[in-house]
């Protein structure tokens, strides 16, 4: 009987140490790779030019980028977003907790990579999407949210997080 105890006394702590060692060594930053697709929340917002928004804009593969004129990191990702918008990706902005005036000024000054930007001064749509701050970016297809990146979007995150999701979506639609 005691030999079982001796075995367990060594084995169980050993498993604990090995487990923690493994956790320490794995890079957990890209753990949010897969998410359950969820429907794009309904909203009644206008865009920055006070135009109504056609929800069909979210049928095709789109990026919804949360940005604001007060957001400093958004400046950092802006060049990359401009790059992306020049490819085939439909880039839509979500102007988050901002003033219309400041937002338009910002776009005028830095350049507007967005097809259009939803004006969300109270952050209602952002809240329903689970946004915790700016910048964040969502990957959308057929009016469903299939990907989410927090923090600034760059080549690395695009490659590791969104590209696989895009591939998977393309496979599924075949």
């Amino acid at each position, binding site marked *: 009987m*005691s*030999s079982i*105890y*001796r*075995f367990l*006394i*060594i084995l169980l*702590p*050993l498993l*604990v*140490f090995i*487990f*923690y*060692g*493994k*956790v*320490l*060594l*794995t890079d*957990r930053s890209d*753990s*949010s*790779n*897969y998410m359950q697709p969820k429907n794009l929340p309904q909203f009644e917002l206008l865009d920055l030019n006070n135009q109504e928004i056609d929800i069909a804009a979210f049928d095709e593969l789109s990026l919804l980028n949360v940005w604001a004129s007060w957001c400093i990191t958004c400046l950092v990702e802006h060049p990359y977003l401009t790059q992306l918008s020049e490819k085939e990706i439909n880039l839509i902005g979500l102007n988050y907790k901002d003033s219309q005036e400041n937002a338009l000024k910002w776009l005028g000054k830095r350049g507007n990579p967005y097809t259009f930007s939803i004006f969300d001064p109270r952050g209602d749509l952002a809240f329903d999407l689970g946004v915790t701050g700016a910048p964040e970016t969502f990957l959308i297809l057929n009016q469903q949210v299939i990907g989410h990146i927090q923090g600034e979007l760059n080549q690395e995150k695009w490659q590791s997080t969104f590209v696989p999701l895009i591939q998977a979506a393309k496979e599924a639609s075949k």
Partner: protein
Amino acid sequence: MIGEIAHFLSIASVMILTLVLIINIIFSFSSGHSNQLILSYKLFNQACFLIFLSFGIYIYLAITDDFSISYIANHSNSQLPIFYKITSIWSAHEGSMFLWIVFLTLWSILFVNYLSFEHPLKKGTMLMLTLIILGFLLFLLVTSNPFERILPFGVIEGADINPVLQDPALAIHPPLLYLGYVGFVISFSFITAYLFSGNLSYPWEKDIKNWSFVAWIFLTVGITLGSWWAYYELGWGGYWFWDPVENVALMPWLAATAFMHSLFASSKSNVLKAWTLFLGILIFALSLFGAFIVRSGIIDSVHSFANDPQRGLYLLGFSGFITFISLGIFAYRLPSMQSSKLIVTGSKESFLSMNNILMLTAIFSIFLGVTYPLILESLNGEKVSIGSPYYNTIFSPLILLTSIFIMISVEALWQRGMQAKTLFFAVAPTFLLAALALYLIWYFVEIFSLLAYVGIYSGLLIIISYFLKAALTIKNNSYLNKGSFVAHIGLGLLFFSVSMNSILSYQKNINLFPGDQQFINESIEEFNFLDLQNIKASNHDIVLAKILILQNGNSIYLNPEKRKYFARGQITSETAIHATPLKDTYLTIGDQLENGSWTFSLQINYFVKWIWFSSALMVLGILMTIFKKKIR
């Protein structure tokens, strides 16, 4: 230059400790070398003194604002009072690790020299301690060097430390906590030496009993101080958040409490020897695990120091190495430890055994709560958060069980079972009285919460059973262990106060203009916003609200503040508390709204003083136990 001297002293200590190890390895294959032993002990003491000297110089460097040292530049500032210059040393990873090692060394040098030269376990204990100190010192110097310089000229002024850290209670919380944490290295090393020696009939419990009790006291005080600080400083009215870093301090505490109890069974009745030894090893192993969790950044916590996998791996590896030396020899010796005596069900030993089981379950629950999110995440990427709803639900029945067993154990005898009649008369009155008290509480309070009521009932069971026992003792003029009495009343009071606090306390969000007043409820008839002041202090701006509260006919003046510190632009809130034995009136300023009015958060927190008092009682009880023998 002076920094280099301190640095060199630490390195020298490493070399000397290594020398101690080498000498003993070389000479361990032959026997009877008392010269080698004398030399080893001398070298050990010298190595310890070098560490003290090195740290002493480091304190000097901090006081004299040596901002060419990177750590001091990052965590201190010439405008800080001297007290906070010193305490800034342990405000972050490198410095606090240094302090940890200093205390490790302090306990070690005291205990090793306390053991007489002829003591059979002196050498083994010293060697184990040498190994542990060496490992941590190397960790410090290699991965977390507090002596690193900013070259070539240093900086002119240090960064201001987080204003939240400029607080006396928070400043002494780490030293006290560490003294407790590392104090159990003594039992760890001594037990390991004992197991290696093979002479299992040596009465080892005697030698480390009081050392363990003292370490337990430091750990209890350290944890309580952290809780107390969180309560009055953070402004949320909470005192325990089941944050991972709090949890890893609680686990060694539970193991230590179990260990202290198990020591009695082991030394008095020669049973549960293996369990007691295991617990003695477990405490420090859990402390090591705690240091790893806090300093590796593996778990998100507001407390955690560093986020460095390299450091984490070293700590994990070294902790594992040390733990497995002990566990290994423990497992090896286990067959020889079976005591011939079995435990009589219903005896005091039986209850001590049950106590071990319950404490271990509590430790397991916390460990599960800390580890489960990591397990789930590594299995399927799912993220889960575990907080007070989980721990409260799990601990509620455990506490009830514990209280019932404590209550019955008061009447238990050593090595003999209890008769059903004794059991019944011991237990029934307490159950009934506690139920009556609970009913009265419900009648007056009119609030119900299952988990809280379980907690209240548990506390009442313990308190009432011990008071009944005391009454009987006075009547029969028999023996009552006074230290145990005080400590357990403290525990019962803790369960009681925590639970009462959770159901009675409430919070109100108030909004009004300066000069206004408001009616709050039947006991808080008036909330007067007398005045708002703007004050400039040396390193911060203050917005001060002068409030007068009319509570149950009493006038209470409270002046909560909001501060903005220049150095980092940080905003902190200073809570205003009016404390009475029964409840605290607790006020913080919120924000100013667009219309110019201000919001306040008013909390009435009940039984808070009792929580701190119950901790003090537990410590007092242990102190009485330590000094009991001396009085005789």
